[in-house]
């Protein structure tokens, strides 16, 4: 199709302008304001005990939630794309629940189940206002990503290759590792990127269940908000920048091991 040159330039300017206005300028401003008073101030601000604790809590929660959701996501996608069972439509719909329900509501729901007087109150360790609650909330909100990335890929590749592998003597396990997983790897990788982003960025559900004990149950996003509320704007910016850097780091790491998506 031949597109008028002027039209093409307009289209491109619009797309870039839109991105700049809504994404690049605000994120850029965070970095600008962060480093306004020099790198030392930033360094001091992100190395306070509260900040270090928040940083490690965020990392820990992400490192628990993402692998679990990846394993669950791939299994669930296999069940949805390959399985024939009763309740498949229900499972399919349930997967999207975390997208449909507001994170704050998810947090409250967890409090109702695991909190004082809740249904599962009698557990030997504390869930609500403690790290397990934060992990649960984070897993909950990031469940759909891997499933939703992998299912369409599985449907598209079909099961011909898997059947071929079985006629060549491969058992289910061998077929999964040698045929299915390599075929869906870009879908899995992209699902992981989205999950990581969601896990480190989650605020609503975590804020309800965490109790915000500084140095103990405060994640990076909660720290940002706490500093912002306490008029420590520079500190809030510094913590935000740290969050942004983790996110960008994940994105870069994934694009490194995931050089081309269009190889099929």
């Amino acid at each position, binding site marked *: 199709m031949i597109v008028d040159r002027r039209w093409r330039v307009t289209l491109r300017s619009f797309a870039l302008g839109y991105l700049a206005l809504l994404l690049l300028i605000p994120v850029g401003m965070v970095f600008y304001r962060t480093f306004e008073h020099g790198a030392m101030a930033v360094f001091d601000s992100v190395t306070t005990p509260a900040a270090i604790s928040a940083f490690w809590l965020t990392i820990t929660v992400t490192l628990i939630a993402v692998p679990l959701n990846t394993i669950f996501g791939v299994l669930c996608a296999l069940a949805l794309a390959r399985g024939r069972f009763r309740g498949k439509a229900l499972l399919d719909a349930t997967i999207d629940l975390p997208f449909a329900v507001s994170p704050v509501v998810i947090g409250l729901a967890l409090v109702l189940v695991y909190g004082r007087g809740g249904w599962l109150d009698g557990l030997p360790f504390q869930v609500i206002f403690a790290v397990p609650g934060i992990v649960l909330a984070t897993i909950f909100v990031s469940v759909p990503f891997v499933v939703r990335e992998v299912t369409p890929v599985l449907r598209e590749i079909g099961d*011909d*290759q898997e059947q*071929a592998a*079985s*006629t*060549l*003597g*491969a058992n289910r396990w061998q077929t999964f590792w040698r045929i299915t997983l390599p*075929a869906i790897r870009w879908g899995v990788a992209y699902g992981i990127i989205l999950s990581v982003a969601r896990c480190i960025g989650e605020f609503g559900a975590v804020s309800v269940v965490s109790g915000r004990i500084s140095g103990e149950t405060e994640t990076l996003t909660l720290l940002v908000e706490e500093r912002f509320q306490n008029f420590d704007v520079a500190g809030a910016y510094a913590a935000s920048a740290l969050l942004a850097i983790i996110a960008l780091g994940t994105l870069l790491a994934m694009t490194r091991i995931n050089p081309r998506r269009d190889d*099929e």
Partner: protein
Amino acid sequence: MIAVRDVRKSFGDFVALNDVSLEIPDGSLTSLLGPSGSGKSTLLRIIAGLEEPDKGTVEIHGSDATQVPPQRRGIGFVFQHYAAFKHMTVRDNVAFGMKIRKQPKQRIQERVDELLEVVGLAGYQQRYPNQLSGGQRQRMALARALAVEPRVLLLDEPFGALDAKVRAELREWLRRLHDEVHVTTVLVTHDQEEAMVVSDHIAVMDKGRIEQVGGPVELYDRPRNRFVMSFLGPVSKVGEDLVRPHDIAISLTPEDGARQATVSRIVHLGFEARVELEVEGEGTVAAQMTRAEADHLELVERAVVWVRATGRTAVPA
């Protein structure tokens, strides 16, 4: 020998196979021929173990294989759409089954090279499937299936996705390959010409049943019913009989049992001539003869002639 006994398979309300029994002799190349929906692919997949029959048994080389998973049936399977492992090179595709069986590296390497030579893909070891043409992919898939030295080779419309010229080449090639390798082969196809060219035996299927089993010539000359007759070649209807167009005799004078007809069109196709006739009260009948016969009769359009079926192959209603 592969023996299928009283196999039944339904998908929901649809009966794909209706108590089918079939014996496939060792070392033969047998085709399952039929229109789509006739159950031929389902039967092949049941022999492979990719589908489980609702009832009935499958015996491969004397032992009951009905409950044996595809991994342990000693089969090679070739799919219509190649089922190439896209993330592997041609070498790794062909080596897959041998690697699963943990054969020594040296042996795998030699066998892969040897097989690629056989299927005409020598030198393509490092290519990926998306760098091959459809015909090359299917030959790779065949090498992959043969690599595990199957007792039975099962081909599910292997040339169906290829264009006509490549298809004709590959079917000749498959026949030559079979004459060299002698592995018991079952080919599913809806193309009667393909079945006639490559097979020792053909099982004609329709609506989940086997209509007739026999050699190509036998089926063509002595079809058991109208379905087999019309599926294996062109037919014309004279009265209530189905006959081959080359079994219609035309004469210029009235004969016993002949019907009066008018020549509506004459088409010359090189060696042969096709004559379309309007039979009184019955509609159009196509007859086929050599150019010499047509010239001898001095047929012209609108001429009034008499036609009758001479055929050995006439099937009554």
